[in-house]
Structures are given as C-alpha cells and as structure tokens.
C-alpha cells in the first residue's frame, strides 16, 4: 500500500469531528483542550457517581423482581388527598417540576457567569438553591407522611413487600443527600460570586462546575422518578 493512501482514506472516512477527537487524544499536555481541571474532574466524578446510582437502582429492580410479597401500588401510596379528592403522585409531580425548574435557573446562572454578570449569577444560583431546598423540604414531608401516617418502615410496611420501604428510604435518602450537598455547594459558590471572588481571579468556572453537579442530580432524579414512582 502506498504511503499517502491511508491519509486520503482517513480524510474520506473520518468526519471532521472524529478527526478532531483523534487529534485531541493524540496530542500532548491535555486531552480536553482548554478545559478547567475542576471541570474535567467533575465529569469523571459524575461518571463514577452514575455507577453508584446505577447499582442502587439495579439492586432495587432485582429486589422488586425477587420479592415474595406483592409490591405496593405506588400510585396509591404516593397519593395526596386534596379537597377530599385523592390525586395520585401529585406531590412527586410537584417535586419533579421544582427540581427540573431549578436546572433551568442553574443553566441561566452559568450563562450569566460566562458574561461576568455578578449580580444575576448570584441571584439565579440562590434561586436554584432555594428550589433545591424546597425539594428537600417536600421530600421530608413525604417521608414523614409515609412514616407517620402510612406506617412504612425500613423493615416492613402494611401494603406489601418490605423491600418497598427499604429501597424507598435508601434511594431517595441517598438522592436527597446529594441534593442537600448541592444546595450547600451552590450557597458557597453563590456567596463567592456575590463577593466578587471570581471577578478578581477572572475565572467563573466554579459556577459551571457546580452546575454540572446540579444537572446530574436532577438527571438522576428523573431515573428515580421513572423507575421507582412510575413503575
């Protein structure tokens, strides 16, 4: 084969994007060019965290499949009686709406961060944190309702398989912990933004990195919502 052939073939076969990816990975110094170290690290961490939640959810699905007692009907368990009417999954629907909205405000905060707009960035981050705190608050309400009114315990519940309560508390608890950590992280970064810390360092990457984490926590919730509440 002649020496020029592979090159021309490469050009024909590989799309420009693929060629760029190949160039990045074969370059020196950095694989992800001009990427903040913290951002790269956050992506890798999120990949690892994905495996944690995947293990939780896969474990839950296995248990649900192998439980000997019937699984409680989530539409009934997670219903709220409002004005004498039982509305299935209403609280979860609101919680999901709040959390997804918080992703929207976070995205706007990142956008204003890029524009070095200190006031708007901090405000939107505070709003995001507020949405997050609301979510955790509603989760606390949901937990206390389940524990106090429905009698759901980690070791059993009146509605059916004991694994229901166990996996519910474990998975939503672990997710709630993530949200709470996120709220704290957002508050810290927001206060730094407000005090002009990133204006002095000239680098607003921390906002985006916090945003990555926050979007991830929201994405995970979508899966928990689908697999735990809707199934």
């Amino acid at each position, binding site marked *: 084969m002649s020496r020029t052939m592979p090159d021309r073939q490469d050009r024909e076969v590989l799309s420009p994007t693929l060629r760029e990816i190949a160039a990045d990975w074969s370059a*020196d110094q950095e694989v992800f060019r001009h990427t903040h*170290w913290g951002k790269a690290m956050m992506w890798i961490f999120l990949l*690892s965290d994905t495996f944690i939640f995947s293990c939780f959810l896969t474990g839950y699905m*296995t248990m649900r499949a192998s439980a*000997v007692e019937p699984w409680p009907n989530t539409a009934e368990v997670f219903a709220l009686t409002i004005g004498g009417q039982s509305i299935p999954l209403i609280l979860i629907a609101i919680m999901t709406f709040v959390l997804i909205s918080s992703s929207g405000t976070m995205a706007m905060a990142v956008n204003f961060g890029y524009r070095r707009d200190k006031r708007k960035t901090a405000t939107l981050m505070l709003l995001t944190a507020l949405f997050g705190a609301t979510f955790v608050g509603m989760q606390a309400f949901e937990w206390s309702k389940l524990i106090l009114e429905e009698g759901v315990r980690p070791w059993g519940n009146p509605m059916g398989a*004991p694994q229901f309560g166990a996996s519910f508390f*474990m998975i939503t608890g672990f997710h709630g912990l993530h949200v709470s950590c996120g709220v704290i992280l957002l508050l810290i970064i927001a206060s730094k933004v407000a005090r002009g810390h990133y204006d002095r360092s000239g680098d607003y990457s921390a906002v985006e990195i916090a945003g990555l984490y926050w979007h991830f926590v929201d994405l995970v919730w979508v899966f928990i919502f689908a697999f735990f509440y809707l199934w």
Partner: protein
Amino acid sequence: MATTLADDLRPLHHPHSWVTRYVWSQDHKVIAIQYSVTAISIGLVALTLSALMRLQLGFPGVFPAIQPDNYLQFVSMHGMIMVVYLLTALLLGGFGNYLIPLMIGARDMVFPFVNMLSFWFYLLSVIVLVVGFFVPGGPTGAGWTLYPPQAISEGTPGHQWGIATMLVSLAIFVVAFTMGGLNYVTTVLQARTRGMTLMRMPLSVWGIFTASVMGLLAFPALFVAAIMMLFDHFAGTSFFMPMMQSMGRVTPTEGGSPLLFQHLFWFFGHPEVYIVALPAFGIVSDLISVHARRNIFGYRMMVWAITIIGALSFLVWAHHMYVSGMNPYFGFFFATSTLIIAIPTAIKVYNWLLTLWRGDIHLRVPMLFAIAFIFTFIHGGLSGLFLGNVSVDVPLSDTFFVVAHFHMVMGVSPVLVIFGAIYHWYPKITGRMWNETLGKLHFWITFLGAYAIFLPMHYLGILGVPRRYYALGETGFIPESVHLANEWISIAALIVFAGQSLFFVNMIWSLFKGPRADPNPWGAASLEWLTPQTPPAHGNWGAKLPVVYRWAYDYSVPGAPRDFIPQTEPRA
C-alpha cells in the same frame, strides 16, 4: 486554579512549616510515602494473620489459642487487608501518587488538597478496620467476600460489630479512593508536560491510569453493597436476607436476595483483581525494559492490551459465582468472556518475553523480581484457565486449588512487582542505595518460598481439600500425605515470613547508612530519573518543566552515544 500547564511557574501550595511539609502535606511524593507506609504497616498485620493461619493448618491442635472462630477471623481479615488495604492502596495510592506526576512531567497532582484528603480518609478507613479487632466479638469471620446472610447472622464470628466496622471501613476506603482516583485520572489526562502524548507515557502510568479509571467504576458497587448490608444489619431491612431459620428461630427477614450481594460484590471484586494487576503489569514492563536495556516489545499492543483487559474485566464477574445458584446459562457467557481475557493477557506475556529476548539483561534485584513475576503470573494465569471453565470449576470450587490460583496470580505476582518496584525506585525516592546481597537473599527466599508454599496447594485442591476449614479432622477422602503437605507449606510460609525482615532491615538501614545513589543509577530513559534533585524537591522540576521529544523506551539505539536516550533529548 490554573487551567493549563503551559504556564511553567504555576503557583504551587507552599508549605510553611514542618507540619505542612511532612504531615498535612499536599506534595504528591510525601502523600505517596504516607500511603505506602500505612499500607505496608497494615499489610504486616495481614501477613502475621497468614502466619497464624498456617500454624493452625500445619500443626492442628498444637496451638490451642487459635480457636475455630479466630481462624475464620484471620482468614477474612487477611484476605480483605491484602486485597484492598495493602495492594490497592500501595499500587495506586503509593506508586500512583509518586510516579504519575514525575513520569508525565507535572509539578504535582491537579488537586493537591483533595489528594491529601484522600490519604487521611484512607488512614481513617484503616483505623476503623483495626478497631474491628478490638470490638466485642472481634473482627468479622465471614470470609473476605462477606457473603450475607451468614456475615450478619448469629453463629458467624464478628456478626455483631466486626462486620459493621468492616463495612464502614470499606465505605470510607471507597471515598478515599475516589478522591485519589479522580486526581490520578485528571492528572494523566490534563496535566502532562509539553511533548508528552498519551502514547509516549511509560507503561507504569498506563497501568495505573487504567486501574484508576476502573476503580472509579468498580468501587461504587462495593460501596452500594456495603451500605445495603449495613441497612440489613442495623435497620432490619431485607435487601440480602431471605426468610430463614437461624439458631432454631425464624428470622423476621424475608424476600431478600443473597445473590444480589454476590453480583454487586463481584462486579467490584473482579475488576479489583485487575485494579491490582494492571499497575503491576505496567510497572513490570518498565522494570524489564530498563534492566534488559531494550525497548518494550510492542508498546502499542501493550497499551491496547491494558485498556482491553480493563474493559473486559467488567464483563466477567459472575465466573466467581458458578456454584452460587445463579442461572446456569450465565455460566456459558461468563466462561466465554473470561477466556477472551486470556488473549490480551497472553499478548502482554509474550511481549515481556520478547523484550527479554536477546536483551542485555542485568540481573539486579529489581530485574530478578520482574522475571520472577513472569513465572508466577504465567503459572497463576494457567490455573485460571481451569477455574474459568464451568465444568472444571465446579469440582475445584472452594478448594485449595482456588487459594493457590489467586495467591499466585494476584497475591504473589503483584507483591513481587511491588518489591521489584521498591528496589527500582528506592534510589530516587531516598537518594540512597540499598544493599545488593541482602536484596538478592530476600529475593530468593521470597521467590522460592512462594513456590514452596503455593505449588503444593494445587495438589491439595485437586485432592478436594476445602479452603477456609479450621481443621480437616477425621475425613475419609483425604489421604495422609495432605497433612505432610500442610506441614511443609506451613514451614515454608514461616521461613518466607521471617525472610521479609531482610527487606525491612535493608530498607531502613540503607535509608540512613546506604551509599549515596546516582540520580539515574539504572540508566533509565523516563522522566522521573531526570529531576534536577534526588530525591526530587517540592515542585519536582526546578524552574522549567521538562519537554519531551520521544517515548520512554529508547534503549540500545544503534549509533547513540549511550545505551539509552532520555525522553527529553530532542530528535536529531
């Protein structure tokens, strides 16, 4: 926080006092030594436990202080400490920390503070682990695999508190590893020096890098399993607990799946084998190449083999579970995927042998250990072929054959590499040279001793001697020769155990009294030997970062003035 390394004078954290320099240090080299010393210390505990086990097995009834419960606790703690707290921590936390920045030409890890936290969490996990020895009921005796339901059921030693400290310690270890692993991966990806492409990195870095990625994806399963078992233990959940009779009573648990734990555990457990093996593969490639004065044969193949082994190792976990009661059809898939791993692994072995072929081999102590590794690894790999096949595995399961196999392949082999690596890099780390005679004596005792211990175990296994048994007692199918073999193994083990003191004496004596070492005593081409100071100072490279022009394996190049060309030498 800098975003690029092009800036040579990136502001580093600067230690101001002895405490921030050597205790709360953010310097990757100090953290590496902290990691290594902690890992080796706890490894000595595990080594002592194995000696106690051998005393019982070789001379049953002679040591009444070792009761059946104690024996099971020794087995469990020995296994878990060796695999997780010694090998993983030493190879990644120790060598990973020391070698990555030096080999890729960085001043430090990308997040020195997180790196420091990683060590302190690791130390905490070790402390919690050690606390397990002193809680009421002693440490867990559930075997290193910690299978429920027995791990948390009455009758198993340490089912009350020992198992709890074990699980908590593992969860903390996972947190510590995650912080370290994120650093190693990000540093390799984003903080290499100019000219250092991924395909110019020494294989040590490739092995450690791939193992770190794997750790970040495999340890989550262990973390989740530990959390769930802690819930089963303390909150009365039934994740892993079926309805069963325990001590004549029906337990309140029902509907849990013990198999689920095994799947989670081995989804971590099998990649863990390669998390330990891949850094060893990488390091041994460098040792062989340097001391044979030849470039590593098939560098690209070696890199691809490392990554392919890493990827495949996530698809083989249930070959540990052929007799667990899972769907037997899984056996077909997992046996197939297991045997496919033999291909990249064999490529690596051939490449090591071909690197040695017609090389200018210097049989110094690190090289002896490296060549010994090839022996033990081929040996352990071949017995793995037996165990990977379902029909052959079923009769061999839970016998001493399994013990012999995994000790050969992931016990002795990585430990030999670790010894080789310590001898190899000791002059750089301490600036002193160790004693050659003591080193060689240590090598021969360790290498021949390992065979004296583990070769007869294959024979015991084929005879059907079960593992984890306190004593064989009056068992009809076990011939008299087994007892003789057990005595032989125990005596050999005790000699090897005692022989390790040569290593420690050599290392500690040389630290103070050893002759000053040359900055590059082996004539190696990779960056870590080219630091302006030996041992490398804070920031590693002085005023300017090195610039790399070639791979790390230019040895015995025809026409070159010396038999190696450093990576920093421009191409003609």
